[in-house]
């Protein structure tokens, strides 16, 4: 951001000592625009207005305000539930605050980071950034190709300066100073009569380079992230042990992609879930490890075994596969009233309680040949404990030690033929009836079917039977493809490197003028200037001048003491001795 930026360290903001007509490359040429808030141009034409607006936008002050605004507009994202992060909580918010929620919705407060006002702020900020950094980069490139600026005629305004008579001869002093300024870019100016030589030296151009790299990398980052949202895809799928997933859009339980994503671009790999294991800490009961063993078949036909773990996604076909969830999928067979097999297979149950793996699920049996369609909804308990007193059952461990299915029984029309997509984990009971015990006044308590592995249990009212065959595990997988990831990382690291350079590399100018007084003594005057805070500046000038200085040892020691502020008494002692 250029406006308001100037080489710091000068005593006053004005720089009367800057030689006229010499651009010192400090990029403060654009500075005057908005250092004070200029009133809007009255009576200007539209072009002038545009120019004025652009200057305001690219000024440091406006950039600062936009930064503040960006911080402020991001905050609602933590006060209100966000739809992309947690749609369930948004739905709950609608239930809890029925009158407020639509208003919030209107202002995009349930999706702050995609809202027009949030986008407006960061786009303006980036516009401001570009408008500022581009001219500044051009200035910097110019500065890189030019020798350092000529030294001002007087050094008195520089806070870090020095002057003394040197025992070294004039020409030798010039040579020595030139050597001491190794690593600097140098401009040597010899006076008209050859009596005075001035060295202008500058180093640390990387500070500004870093600054520019940092800002440009942020622009690159924004572009890469933006491009990623256009070409990415992401899908979720549940795979039961023994099953194979083929990467095509049809196979996903849910799938979303950017507008530029090409459906044919799905890498057609296949993946079989060979097994899933979980481990829990014996003391705390907390999850300790999840592992999905899979066999991946690439389009070429090569099979390879892989393990997917939390924090260790599988990378294949340009996509990444993440282990996001797991659970049990009891394998059941349901027969209808006529004894025909109406349903058979594993049914994933969703975990309700992560500590005990209390799981909830639904078994839909539409293909009955005799009688109504059957719906079974209820819980799966890996280690079931039945409390006869309260007639409840619950799980005490996520390990399948005493697996049990506890199911309510419904019959009627499942509503699957309406063509309306249904949630597989919910029973649409609109056209169904629950089986209840005959009560005193018509409706009694619901009849529950309890079935353990290996058992076959009759369904009530002669609806049929259910058999609990097996207990395979299932995993919930996230597949994600985003080709911009390496770019995002590259720009982020570039920004980090640029930032470090711009904050920690010192940019310094050193001016050394060497002449002679009437007595033929060599006279050295020097000054140093830094951009930004530079606590080492004084030390640097001392270092450069050291070989030219009279009475080397003591003087320097004194100076070092003064700088560090240590041992003031010793300094006085030495001063006294010397005096």
């Amino acid at each position: 951001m250029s406006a308001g930026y100037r080489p710091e360290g000068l005593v006053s903001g004005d720089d009367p000592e800057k030689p006229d007509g010499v651009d010192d490359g400090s990029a403060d040429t654009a500075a005057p625009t908005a250092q004070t808030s200029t009133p809007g141009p009255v009576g200007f034409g539209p072009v002038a207005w545009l120019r004025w607006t652009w200057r305001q936008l690219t000024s440091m002050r406006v950039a600062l305000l936009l930064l503040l605004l960006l911080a402020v507009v991001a905050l609602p994202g933590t006060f209100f539930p966000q739809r992309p992060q947690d749609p369930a909580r948004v739905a709950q918010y609608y239930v809890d605050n029925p009158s407020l929620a639509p208003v919030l919705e209107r202002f995009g407060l349930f999706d702050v980071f995609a809202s027009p006002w949030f986008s407006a702020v960061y786009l303006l900020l980036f516009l401001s950034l570009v408008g500022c950094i581009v001219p500044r980069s051009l200035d910097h490139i110019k500065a890189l190709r030019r020798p350092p600026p000529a030294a001002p005629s007087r050094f008195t305004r520089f806070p870090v300066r020095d002057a003394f008579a040197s025992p070294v001869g004039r020409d030798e002093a010039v040579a020595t100073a030139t050597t001491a300024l190794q690593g600097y870019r140098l401009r040597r100016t010899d006076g008209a009569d050859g009596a005075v030589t001035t060295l202008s030296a500058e180093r640390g151009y990387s500070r500004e380079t870093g600054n520019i790299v940092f800002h440009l990398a942020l622009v690159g980052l924004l572009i890469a992230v933006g491009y990623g949202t256009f070409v990415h895809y992401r899908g979720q799928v549940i795979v039961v042990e023994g099953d194979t997933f083929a990467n095509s859009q049809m196979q996903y339980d849910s799938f979303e992609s950017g507008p530029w994503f090409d459906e044919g671009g799905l890498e057609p790999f296949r993946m079989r879930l060979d097994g899933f294991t979980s481990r829990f800490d014996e003391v705390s009961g907390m999850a300790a490890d999840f592992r999905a063993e899979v066999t991946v078949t690439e389009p070429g036909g090569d099979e390879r075994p892989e393990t997917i773990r939390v924090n260790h996604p599988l990378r294949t076909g340009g996509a990444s596969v993440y282990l996001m969830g797991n659970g049990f999928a009891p394998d059941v067979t349901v027969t209808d009233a006529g004894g025909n097999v109406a349903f058979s297979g594993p049914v994933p149950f969703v975990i309700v309680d992560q500590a005990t793996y209390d799981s909830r699920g639904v078994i839909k049996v539409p293909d009955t040949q005799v009688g109504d369609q059957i719906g079974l909804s209820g819980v799966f308990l890996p280690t079931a404990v039945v409390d006869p007193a309260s007639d409840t059952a619950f799980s005490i461990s996520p390990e399948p030690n005493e697996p049990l299915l506890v199911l309510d029984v419904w019959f009627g029309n499942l509503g699957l033929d309406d063509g309306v997509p249904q949630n597989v984990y919910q029973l649409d009971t609109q056209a169904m009836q629950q089986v209840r015990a005959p009560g005193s006044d018509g409706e009694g308590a619901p009849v529950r079917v309890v079935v353990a592995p290996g058992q076959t249990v009759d369904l009530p009212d002669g609806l049929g039977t259910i058999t609990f065959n097996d207990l395979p595990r299932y995993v919930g997988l996230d597949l994600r493809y985003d080709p911009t990831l390496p770019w995002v990382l590259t720009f982020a690291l570039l920004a980090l490197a640029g930032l470090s350079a711009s904050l920690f590399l010192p940019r310094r100018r050193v001016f050394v003028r060497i002449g002679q007084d009437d007595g033929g003594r060599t006279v050295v005057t020097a000054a140093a200037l830094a951009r930004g805070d530079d606590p080492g500046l004084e030390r640097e000038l001392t270092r450069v001048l050291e070989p030219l200085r009279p009475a080397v040892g003591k003087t320097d020691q004194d100076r070092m003491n003064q700088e560090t502020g240590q041992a003031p008494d010793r300094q006085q002692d030495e001063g006294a001795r010397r005096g």
Partner: protein
Amino acid sequence: MAELGQISLYLVTAAMTAYLIATIAFAIDFSRLAADRPSRVSRTADARELVSAGVADAPVVAARPVADAPLPPVRRAAAIGQSTFTAAVVLLIAGVVTRGFAAGRVPWANMYEFTTVSVVVASLVFLAIQRKRDVRFLGTFISLFALLALFLALAVLYTDPTAVQPALQSYWLVIHVAIATSGMGVFAVAATVSGLQLAKDRAIGRGTQGRILSSLPTSADLERLAFRINSVGFVLWTFVLISGAIWAEHAWGRYWGWDAKEVWSFVIWVVYAAYLHARSTRGWEGRRAAWFSVAGFASILVNYYVVNLFVNSLHSYSGV
């Protein structure tokens, strides 16, 4: 390993005691400092005469700031504060290390551990600056901060050392979280300095500095010190965001998802970016910039305590 966990607790408690003594000792030194300190000697330059010819400006000896008048030579209270403070840090480091062994992993996986490590870092930053220049005036604030943070950690955030859940089993736990704790410690010191700068500025504005504030360095010096610490903090925080994004990509399948923690970390980054820009915007440098430094640290505290404990976030690893 329960015994080791217990030993760690004793060590942390001992460290708190040492911090308490350090707070008191530094505070006594602080008040004495104010009472004893003579008025500042004006900055003078002993001009030497040199006849010049051919050189444009007559050589004038550098108007280098002459060191302030010598302080009272012995600051016994400060020395006591300094040594108990060092002892506190050593005890706390021992407590952190034993905790790590007790849990069998790096000791910064929940809020209790995170706090202890942050306090270690803040203390080390203070000691590191102290090696270069005399900032013992900060001692009482830093040890008070350490004391409060540790008290909160023990009273509210404590959990027994256990292994971590699969989502945290990553080497990024070592890197990302370590840098985050360090960043927090570094920003804490900078915010303290900025707070003192603001207090001093305000007193000067009123025309009454009072004894204690007048014994502090000039507000320009405090500003520069805060900036140097904050710029280290900002680079660390940038790395926290990047490493967090990499880890999120590994663990959750996306590098940035505007989770509550991510939002606040982003806000913190933007506030400190604003701070850096404010410093080089005319009319905003100095006092206004210092407010950003304080606001940035306030956001860090919100991000740490409020988001971790009260907001539904993927980063809910407090264990509380």
